[in-house]
Structure formats: C-alpha cells, structure tokens
C-alpha cells in the first residue's frame, strides 16, 4: 500500500514533473497557434452550431 516506495526507486524521478510541465506548455502553445490560425469560415461555422439546431 505504500506507493512512495515504488516511485522512490525510479532513478531521476524528479525529471517527471518537469517533463509534464514541458509537454503541457508545448501542447498549449500548439493549441493556441491552431486557434489563432484556424480558417475563418470554419470558426464561423463552429461558433454557429448552437444556434442552428433545428
């Protein structure tokens, strides 16, 4: 039941939180880039989805 011990045995375990931060930052940058560059026609279409549900 002691999870700690499994993790403590991983060498260089402290790199994991850094890797996590890194992955998220990159992913976030890509998502932002995509959102800003996405085609206007598509963005207009998507933003109108809630309004034309009939």
């Amino acid at each position, binding site marked *: *039941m*002691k*999870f*700690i011990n499994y*993790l*403590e045995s991983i060498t260089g*375990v*402290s790199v*994991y*939180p850094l*890797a*996590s931060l890194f*992955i*998220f930052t990159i*992913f*976030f940058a890509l*998502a*932002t880039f*995509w*959102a*800003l560059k*996405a*085609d206007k*026609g*598509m*963005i*207009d*279409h*998507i*933003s*109108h*989805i*809630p*309004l034309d*549900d*009939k």
Partner: protein
Amino acid sequence: MPLEKFSYDNRTVKWFAYACIGWGLIGMLAGLWAALALVLPDMNLGFAPTTFGRLRPVHTNAVIFAFVGNGIFMGVYYSLQRLCKARMFSDMLSKIHFWGWQAIIAGGAITLLMGCTTGKEYAELEWPFDIAITLIWLVFGANMLGTILRRREAHLYVAIWFYIGTWVAIAMLHIVNSFELPLSFLKSYSAYAGVQDALVQWWYGHNAVAFFLTTPYLGLMYYFVPKAANRPVYSYRWSIIHFWALIFIYIWAGPHHLLYTALPEWAQSLGTVFSIMLIAPSWGGMLNGLLTLRGAWDRVREDAILKFFVVALTCYGMATFEGPMLSLKNVNAISHYTDWTIAHVHVGALGWNGFLTFGILYWLLPRIFSTTLYSKKWANTHFWLGTLGIIFYVIPLYWAAFTQSMMWKQFTPEGQLKFQFLETVNTIVPMYALRAFGGTLYISGVILMIVNLTKTVRHGTFVANEPAEAAPLPKVFVTHGKAHWHSWIERRPIQLAVFSLIVVGIGGILELIPTFLIKSNIPTITSVKPYTPLELHGRDIYIREGCYTCHSQMIRPFRDEVARYGEYSKAGEFIYDHPFQWGSKRTGPDLARIGGKYPDSWHYNHMMDPTSMSPGSIMPQYPWLFEDKVDKTLTAPMINVMRKLGVPYASGYEKQANADMEKQAQEITASLQKDKLPIQPDREIVALIAYLQRLGKDIKATH
C-alpha cells in the same frame, strides 16, 4: 445528401432538471440549518444527525454533487444531443446514469447523517459510494462518447471539449483521492497519511472546484448564453484558448490551500504562481461570455434569464479574481481558517453555479414542455431575491472574517494575546445571523422558482422525443482552407478521444509524482509514536462527528498562533494520521496541541455541555457519547488495517490491543472519578478524551 430523421431525448433532461431542483432545495436547507445552528446552538437538537459536524458535509456534498451535479447532467444531456445532432447514445445508459446518481446521493446523505465519513472534505462519502461513483461516471462517459461518435456534425463545439475535459479530470481526481483501505462496510482509512494525505486531498479539493463546479458549467455557459442571447459566442478562437489554458493551469494550483502549513516550501510557491496565472484564462472566459451579450444589453433589462447569466458570469469573475488573491501568502495569512473562505466559495456556488443553473432551468423547461414561462415577473422577483440573498450572505461573512482575523492577531502592550478565542467568535455571531438571513432570501427565491416552473410545466405538454433531422456525416471531409492536422483528427473521433485522454492523463500522473515523493521531504521525529488503540477509537469518533469542520489541527508559524496554541506544527507529527485532520476553518480553536492543556474532567463537562466550561460557546452538545459504547470487535481489524498502511504496530499487537485499551480507559475513568464524574470505561467519551489528550504531545516527550 438525404436527411436522416431522429429524435432528441428530453425525458432524461427533464429527470435531471427535477433532481437538480429537488436536491438543490434540500442541500440549501441543510446549509441554512447549519448556518442557524451557529447562531442558535440549540438547533443542533442534542441529536447526532442534526449536529453541525454532520449537517455541514450533507450541505456541501448535496450542493456540489446533487444540485450542481444534476445541473451538469441536465445541461449536458440537452446540449450535447443538439450540438452533435444525434440522440443520446443509449436510453438504457441514460436511465442507469440517472437512477444510479440519485441512489448515490440518497445513500450518501443518509450515511453522512449516520456519521459514516472518510473525514476528507468534499470526498466524505465512504468506499462503497466511491466505487459506485466510479461506475456511474463510466456509464456517463460511455454515453457521452457514444453520442459524440454517432454525431452528424463534423466539428466539436467548444462546449463538448469542456465536457470531455471534465469527464477525464474528474475520473482521475476521484480515483486518486479515493485510495483507502476498508475497515468495515462503511468505514475506511485513507491510504495516505499526514502531509501526503493533505496534498492529495487539496489537489483533489481544488480540482473538484475546477472540474466539477467550473469547467462543465463553462461548457454550459458556451451553449446556453449564445442560445438565450440568440447570437454566437463573442470569440470562438478565444474560447479554445480559454479551454486549454484553464485545464492546463488549474491542475497545478492545488497546493495553495496549504500555505504556511507543514507542506514543503517549493510546492506552496508552485501553487501560488499557477494560481495567479489562472486569472488570465478565467477572466478571458468571463469576458467572452459577457461580450456575447454585446448589442443585446437592452434585452438584459427585461429578460430574467439573461440577468441571471450576467450575474453568474460576474460572480465567476469575482470568485476567480479573489481565488488567486487568496493564494498570495500575505492575504492567505489573514483569510485562512476564517469565514473569508466560506464567503469566497459562496460567491461561486450561489452566484456562478446557482444563477447559471436558474437561468438554464427558466430557458430549458418551457422549451421541452413546448410552452412559455408561466410568470416572467416572478422570475424577475427570483432574480432580485437571489441577488440580495448573495449580498446579505457574503458581505457579513467578509466583515466577520476581517474582524475575527484581526482580533486573533492583536496583542496587548504587555505582549499578551488581547482576546480569548471565544470572544472573537461571540463578536461575529451577529454577522452569522445576517448570513442566515441572506441564505433565507436566496432560498425563498428558489421556492418561488419551483412554484413558477411547476405552473409552467402544468400548462405545457411534455415533448419526450423531440423530432429532428440532419444529414449524416459525409464520407469525404470538406475542408475549409488548407487541410490541417487538427481537421485530420477531428474526423477521427475515437483517436481524438484517446488522444485527449492521454494528454490529460500523462499530465495528471506526472504531476502527482511530487506528491508521492513528499515523504522524502518530511523530517522524521523519533518521539512521534502511533496512536494507542483507545486513541484510535477516539480519533474515529472525532472524524465521525465532523469535528474537523470547525476545528483545525495545524498551527501556523505566526506569533499569535504560537502564543495561543503552542509550538507550530511540524510535518513529522502527522505521519500516522490516516486521514489527516488539519481542517480548513476555525469556528472553534485549533486542537493540534490540546493534549494535556485541560484535565480530563474539563473535556467530560465540555462535551456534555460546552457552555458549562466556556460560557457563550456555540459548540453542540454531545450527550450520546456518554451512552454509546466503543465497539471492541473493531480494535483488532483497526490495528491490522493501520499496519497495512504503514503504521508500525508490532506483529501480533492486535491480540493484546483490547487489553491495552481497557487499561488506558481505566486510567481515564479513575481520573474522572476523582472529580466525581462517574463513567463506564467502555463509553465513547472515554476514547474521545484519550485522543484529545494525546494531540500534539509527542514532540514534547523526552526520550
């Protein structure tokens, strides 16, 4: 492309709407009762299930998981079908989801009143419920994902992203925080202890606010605000950035709940930095919602639904500005353990969640009953009752928080604490009365809404299956502009779901690693020993009665706290605390070093009638502790479970534990007898006194 005919399932939406309203009223009434009990302690009734310590978890759990939970499902089941142009994947799964969730709520409320609790805030439900929640959550996920897979609209609107993010994050949070080892059918101990337990718990608590009270409601906001305003969201691009920024940053901010505690410094700082960063996406989202109403402000004057949405978004903005401020250490030094926290969460719960829910209910119920709202005037009255209710609720509590915090910290010129703890409580009791008045206004608004909606429903005809038609997704995808990796993945919903799961999952797992490594940062204190069997029983009683809802066990390194409560708390003192009991609010004084401060007889009299020892105390009476017996058959399993969790009881100790327990109980009984307070040694009060007298004494021991 020929159009396909199908129908939207409104029945499940209706059920969730009714459940949301019904449980909402119950949860709010439980809150009002608890609020009144702080002003009139007689309202605790001297009866275990109606004491503050048990009502408060019922209130918080009912409002979060029953009111807001059913509100989420109502909104998701309505909007997801329309955004996907598809009926919910399976009517059977919808049914299981609905009834399963209601069964968990009903069972949860009853067991909480019975005193079955894990003692971890907002995760109080015991292990059978934790398993049931996991299963029902999977049903919800399957139903949602199935619908997304069968959709007739190529693109996923941003609201659906928020729903998926919510689902993945809550699944992860719930499972990680619920690691516990059962002692009996309705009792378990957290697998984590002390600092580690606190970190996991507040990582959960913080993200439960983020992913249960915020992201799903933002999804609802992105659907229902454009619907009610009849115009698209102000900036769709902005909403995508909002989504990714929010889930990215939120998950890192949890440790801000543990500032100045025994948590390692770096974890506290990380929490603060990410909390400040949170303002950006939160306010981006709020402004995106409010600006959607640009050009429609004339309608806001008349339309109660839009009014509810505007105040909801404004409260969201206020709460998300206040949150990061509270995570600054110097502000937190004032706010923590006071009613500021309570005011802060109620700006969110009453304003953001409550008002958004009311707006959606007023918009949605007339539609699925193909009628119009019975009385717009009443809806406007509800809006004003609710708004005044929020104002009367939060302002007195902010006032109370500042007043009490300042009083706690005042010294006389001679260097003595200026005020007794009880004096600071009695000063703010009038503020508690005003808060209860605010709550009453808010609830009367809700009752008016119930009458209004009941009349609306009576005048309408329910459309159980709303006919709709749409073209199926084309086999060849029509690209807008240049083809892009994102449009590639958008055509492949399974890959998309798996991919988003992996992204959030990796982040979640990796962020947890520092938490599990916490042990290496905790200096061991050799004089800290495991609890005796009698103290373990006493601790279970302490948890059962919800003492942690009013008493902290964590002395921060401030001059006034050290002067009032003793040496500040060390991380190493809590290594055998499954679960931790640091608490988050001081309606009563801190108990981390209560051990040995008063004689046994003081505790005896105080638990029987608190005002006999502390005139003016607002603590409930606990007469049943003097009648009920400690269950000795649990002693051995208790020792075994604790040993499995890493508490170093010698092997075979469970066999002599009951004998040790009786010996210690006899000692306490004898000391009480000396003060002419006769009691049987097997009564619960004896165990509770043993536990309280142990608290905080270990580091004073000399070895």
